[in-house]
Each structure stands twice: as C-alpha cells, then as structure tokens.
C-alpha cells in the first residue's frame, strides 16, 4: 500500500523532539528525512537492522528497510536504478553487481561526498578499513576494470565483508586424534575418513546445488589450488589442471559429504553442520553467529575455527556486500551520512556486537568484540589472506557463472567427465567473451 508521506509538520515536530539527543551540527539539516534502503536477507543485514534504531536516535534520520533475498534484491535494483527517479536512497549490492551498476553509471562516485567538509567526518580513519575489501567491493576502473589500480575510484563501501574459514568439530577431531587440516590434501583426506570413523556423519558440508551454489563451491577451491577463471588476456582457464583439481576436490567433498549433499544449497549445507551431521564446514565467516545460537544449533561450543587450507597458495574468498548510493536517489546526502555512520568505527563495532561481519581492522582486534566472539581474531587473520581476484567481476560474469554452476551440478549428479565438462564451459565462455567485446584488442 502506498504510504502517505510524512508531512513537513510532522518532520519538524520530530526534529524538535530529537533535538535534545542529536549532536548539534552535521545531522541537523537532515533530521526528519526518511531514507529508503534496500538490503539483502542475510545475517549481517539482520544485525544491521538491530543497530539502525541507534542511528535514528543519534541523527533524527528515519530508515525504512526493504529486505529481499539477494537474487530478488538484484532484480529489484535493476528495475529501480534504471528509472529516472528511484525509490532507494541507499542500496546494498553483491560484489558482482558492482560491475553492472558502475558500468551503467548508476552509482554515485563517492569522491564528491568525502570532499564535502559538511558531510565527511574527519575522524573516519579510512586507513583502518580492510584494504582487500575496499578494492574488491568498492573500487572500479582499476586493473582489469574491477581490481585496484591507478585508474580506479570509489563507488561504494564494503559492508558485510566475508571470507572463507574452516569450521571443524573439536570433539570429533579430539576423539579420533585428528589434527586440523592445513593443506587441501589433508582436508580431503580427513573429509573422507570421517564417514568411516563416525558412521552416519559426513566429512565436510559444502554447497553444491545447481546454479550459483555449485559455482561458488568450485571457485572456493579454484583460487587456493592455483587456478583462475581467466588469464590476463581474458582467455578462459577454468579447464586447466588447477580447474580440474578444484572440480575433483568438490566432487570428493560431495561424495564423502552428508546424505543428499549434491542438492545442498547454502542453507542445507549449514543446516547439516548445525545439526551435527558433518564434521567440517568450509564457507563464509557469516555463519559463526548461528553456530553459537542454541535455538538453531546442536553444536554450540563444539566448533573450532581455522584458516582456509592451503593448496598452491592461501587464497580465501572475498565476498559479501557493499553499500552504495544510486544516482537516482532522492536523499543522497543523508544516505551518505548513514553509510558513513554504519562503516565508522562506532558503527562497525556495534554491528559486530550484534552478530554482523565487521570490515575494519580495529574491530577485529577490539577487546569487547573478542570477548563476545572469540573467533574474531582468527577471522581477522583470515581476512589478510583474502583474495580479491578469486572470481572475476565483469558484467558478463552472471552468464558464465550460471553455465558453470549448471555444468558442475551435472558433474556431481550425473557423473559427467570433469575435463570434458570444463572444456565445454570454457568453449561457451569464449563465445560469451567474444560477443561482449573482450577480444577486440587481440
């Protein structure tokens, strides 16, 4: 139902009421405005919703949240950002939307705001932001178009940054005298030993369902095993030796995994770890909160955390979301203030304490945060090995990703030959890249 907009009178009354608490100065001009923000249904943003009342209390700026599953969110944003005037003042976007939105000139360049002395907070301390994430999520126009580099600039801020870590069942590992895997070989070895040692239990639960789940799981192993999707001149390389190795690793994990592993999405994979049906879990850091929630988990206190095992190199995923201001937003300056507050030291700590993923070094070292979440230290360490180039962020990635995901799912369920399957993906990817003009300079 279309809501009646708050009348000016009402807004003025709000300002007066809040004047007592509001810091005199930067927020005064914007108090009483209502920001419409678009967030994904995601544990980090659930935590954000818990701290938003604090923002409103401090600034007098109201926030209305439209929270959607992230594929839906992207659909919605495609529509909204394409219009002359959009509904959203601030959007959260998945890393790979960065390419689309910046390319279509739909996101505000943040330079204008950080240059504005009335808006930019001098105590913001941008050096404290984790570098890899700023470049991975916020930067565009640098090397390869999506990495950091001298030609790039900032279009968004990382918010809800994730990397991959290995969760393992301390009790099971102790019982059988297993040591925490450091390398891929050790991890695969243990993954397949578990079902023998603990009948009924799977080794490692991973996402594997058709589509982006399977593609994600593959990418997770590809970078540490030394592979890449493209070489430097955009030729697909996912079918080289490292690619086959990564697909093999995924297949081994699924084969030694819990029942029905081949159809697991992220939810099922996590669910099986939460229910105590698997001994290990290799995926995003975001799950830590749920694992310690006795309402959802049967393994509270039994889980230890370690870094993503090494193959050729350490390369955990960089993922998660960023927040940016659409070009067609109504209240851009207030949106910037919200964005700055959320990613400030204060906001970052608040969201971390509420169960979100912090994106500052200082928050990972913060005593209060570590007291509440002892794993934060490990996560901070893992972040330093996060690989910003673990997957390409180019506009046609969606197509390649979909093909990769469907094909890998066939490898897992229909026993397609791995080399053949990946060769097929490479061939179709070449056609996609050709059409998109990536080989123009050859």
């Amino acid at each position, binding site marked *: 139902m279309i809501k009646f907009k708050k009348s000016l009178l009402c807004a003025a009354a709000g300002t007066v009421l809040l004047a007592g608490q509001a810091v005199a100065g930067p927020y005064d001009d914007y108090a009483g405005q209502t920001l419409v923000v678009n967030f994904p249904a995601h544990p980090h943003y659930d935590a954000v919703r818990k701290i938003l009342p604090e923002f409103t209390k401090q600034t007098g700026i109201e926030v209305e949240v439209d929270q959607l599953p992230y594929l839906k969110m992207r659909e919605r944003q495609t529509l909204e950002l394409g219009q002359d005037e959009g509904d959203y003042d601030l959007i959260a976007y998945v890393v790979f939307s960065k390419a689309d939105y910046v390319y279509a000139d739909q996101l505000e360049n943040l330079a204008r705001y950080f240059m504005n002395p009335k808006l930019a907070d001098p105590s913001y301390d941008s050096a404290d932001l984790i570098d890899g994430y700023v470049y991975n999520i916020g930067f565009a126009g640098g090397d390869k178009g999506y990495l950091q580099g001298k030609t790039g600039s900032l279009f968004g801020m990382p918010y809800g940054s994730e990397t991959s870590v290995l969760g393992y069942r301390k009790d099971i590992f102790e019982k059988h005298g297993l040591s925490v895997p450091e390398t891929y070989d050790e991890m695969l070895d243990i993954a397949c030993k578990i079902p023998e040692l603990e009948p009924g239990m799977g080794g490692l639960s991973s996402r594997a*369902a*058709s589509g982006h789940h399977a593609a994600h799981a593959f990418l997770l192993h590809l970078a540490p095993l030394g592979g890449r999707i493209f070489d430097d001149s955009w030729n697909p390389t996912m079918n080289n030796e490292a690619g086959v190795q990564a697909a093999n690793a995924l297949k081994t994990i699924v084969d030694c995994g819990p029942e029905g592993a081949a*159809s697991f999405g992220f939810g099922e994979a996590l669910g099986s770890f939460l229910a105590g049906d698997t001994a290990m879990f290799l995926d995003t850091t975001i799950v830590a909160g749920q694992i310690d929630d006795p309402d959802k988990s049967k393994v509270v206190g039994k889980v230890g955390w370690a870094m993503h095992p090494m193959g050729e190199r350490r390369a955990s995923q960089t993922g998660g979301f960023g927040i940016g201001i659409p070009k067609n937003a109504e209240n851009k300056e207030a949106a910037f203030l919200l964005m700055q507050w959320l990613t400030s030291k204060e906001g970052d700590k608040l969201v971390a304490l509420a169960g979100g993923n912090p994106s500052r070094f200082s928050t990972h070292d913060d005593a209060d945060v570590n007291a509440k979440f002892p794993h934060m230290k490990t996560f901070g360490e893992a972040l330093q090995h996060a690989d910003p180039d673990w997957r390409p962020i180019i506009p046609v990635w969606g197509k390649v990703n*979909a093909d990769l995901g469907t094909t890998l*799912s066939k490898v897992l369920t229909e026993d397609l030959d791995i080399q053949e399957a990946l060769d097929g993906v490479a061939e179709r990817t070449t056609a996609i890249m050709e059409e998109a003009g990536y080989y123009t300079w050859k």
Partner: protein
Amino acid sequence: MSTATFNRLTPYLFLAPAVVIMALALLYPLGYMIYGSFRAWDPSQALGESTFVGLANYVTLWNDPSFHESAGVTLKFAASVVSVEMFIGVGLALLLDRNIRGMSVLRTLFILPMMIAPVVVGLIWRYMYHPSVGIFNNTLKSLGFESIDWLGQHALLAVILADIWQWTPFIFILSLAALQSLPRSALEAARIDGATAWQQIIHIKLPLMMPVLIVTGLLRLIDAFKVLEVILVMTEGGPGLSTEILALRISRTATEFRELGVAAAMSNYLLMMLLVLTVIMLAYNRVQEYRAARAIRIIEEDI
C-alpha cells in the same frame, strides 16, 4: 437517446468492459511479446530503446542445448503427470463409483490439495523430501532401507510425485461426474446381457466417458505446462537442469540472465508447442465424440 437505440446498444455495453480488459491486459501484452522477441532487450531498457535483431533470439535458442534440455524436461514432466494422474484418477473413480456413506466428505477432502497455493505445496513437499528429517527418509530408515536422495538424483521424480498428489483429485472428480451422468439405459442393457464388471468398464463405461476424459486430460496437460511455483520452491530447477521446466527457464532468463528478448522468444516457442498439442487433442476428441455417439446408438438399438 431513444429506448430502441439503447436496447440495440445493450449487448455491446454488456460486452465492452470484458473486451477492453482482455484487449489491454492479454492481447496487447501477447503482441508486445511477439514484437519483443525480435529484439535485444534488457530489463533496464524500454522496448523502444532496444535494437532489432531479427530471428537471432529464435536461432540462439534453437541451437542452445540448455533450451533443448529444458524443453525435454517440460515434455517429460507433462507426459508423466498427465498419464499417471489419468490412470490413477480414472481408476479411483471406477472403484469409488458406489453408493456409499460419506461420499461427499470424501470428495471434499480430496479437493483440499488442489485448493492450496502451489507455493505452499512446494514447501510441504520440500520439507517431506528433506534428506535427513523428511518423513520419507525417516520412514525408509526406520524400516531399515537406504535413504533416498529425493531432491538430488531423483528430483524430477520428486516433483512429479508432488504434482500427482495435488492434481489426481481433479481427474478423479471429473471422471466420477462423467461416470454418474452416463446413460442408465446403456448400463442396464449391458447388465441384462450378463456382462461382467470388467466387461462393463472396458466396453461401455470407458468408451462412453472418453470425450469427457479427453477434455479433462487436455485441461490437465495445459495446466502441467503452467506449473512453476511448486518446482521453484522445491528445487529451483536443479540439480543441473533436471527439473528446469520451460516456464521456470523463461522466468530465469528474464530475471537472472536479464535477456528479455530471448525470454520472449522462448515464451513463443512454448505457446507454439501448446497450440500444436491442443489442436491434436481437440481433433482426437472430435473423432472420439463421434465414436461415442455411435456406440450409444448401437447399444440402444440392441435393446
């Protein structure tokens, strides 16, 4: 305006709202879709801003193995649900066509699955198929069998079963109605001639029901091509493309791959497929109606 002209205009006045709405919200969109299928069309563009690409979208699909697989899955799904549902539905109708107490209660309970939202049906079945806590695997385990990877290796079977659960009652109820409106004289005549129950079914009941059964089957077939929500909630088309029926692929092409032109072309292929099937079924129906009429005549002449 005189009463006479008003009366002459009445039928048009009565028809006008329906015609306007259907022209605006059905015919125009269909035309728009056909027009759009010849263009490279992105969701962030208005159709006018897109470029004309001729038959490119149709050709791309024609050569696209994923589209073939999807079309195959659609046909497999439709053929299996319609044939199994017809078999069970008609069988149950023949079995339960008796004068028993509580028949209307029974019918009411059977309608329930049909009335519930497909989204909810999908969610119930997704839960029942759950690999570790679902009722099917729990039952299998407690009986000492291996559990089955329902939504993984047997995903197509799993969605077919869910559809059979929801829609067999439709065929049951229509067949029962058809059975009960059969001419009594023909059945009496057969009984007097000493035909067994089986002979009555094979030689009299089924042939006479045939026209209704064909229409019923046709309606089911058309609906089977519309199924989307149940599968979306249960498997999202996976694993691989094993349950990705065309309706689902159209919606994914439009929203996930952002290729509206290709999605429009795919919609056209789907419509053409349906049209051919409908025409074949209707032609077959004509033939059967003629036969049924002749059968009744012969039986009645016998008396």
